[in-house]
């Protein structure tokens, strides 16, 4: 097992905690948890890209990083106005 695979496996429970937090607590707390889970997902995709030597995973990480901004902004706007 390479260090990259070990790092990816060690980061998975952290992502799990963030995902669980998206379903608990206040709406604001859930929104913060979504932002944290998105950041951790991008980092995990980068780590698994090196772990499995799949350069296409980096495109996924970049797409997620770029799409997380408008997606979470919409959620924040929704939270601000209607929730």
């Amino acid at each position: 097992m390479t260090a990259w695979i070990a790092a990816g496996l060690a980061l998975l429970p952290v992502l799990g905690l963030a995902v669980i937090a998206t379903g608990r607590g206040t709406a604001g707390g859930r929104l913060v948890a979504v932002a944290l889970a998105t950041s951790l997902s991008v980092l995990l995709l980068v780590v698994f890209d090196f772990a499995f030597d799949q350069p296409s995973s980096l495109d996924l990480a970049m797409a997620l990083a770029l799409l997380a901004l408008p997606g979470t902004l919409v959620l924040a706007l929704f939270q601000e106005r209607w929730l």
Partner: protein
Amino acid sequence: MNAAVDALLAFAVLSAWIGALAFLRLRTSFERLHVITFVNVVAGGAITAAAALSGGMSARTLQCIFVWIVVVTAGALLSHAIARALHMREGARR
């Protein structure tokens, strides 16, 4: 070189775990926003440095650096937007 990559990855994992524990420990959503910045900057920076050491100055490494810059910049913008939304909705209740 491999030892440095391993150390950077271990540091990234440790900082992510510290961030997750801080997320559970901190009470308000405003305090929890700081965790996102911490994880983005420290864990993301360590993983990017490990990628740069592992792959050299290749296109893949440059892509990693670009992803990290996007994550840090978007994280700052999102923290501001989320804090503003929280202030509008929850600020009056506190």
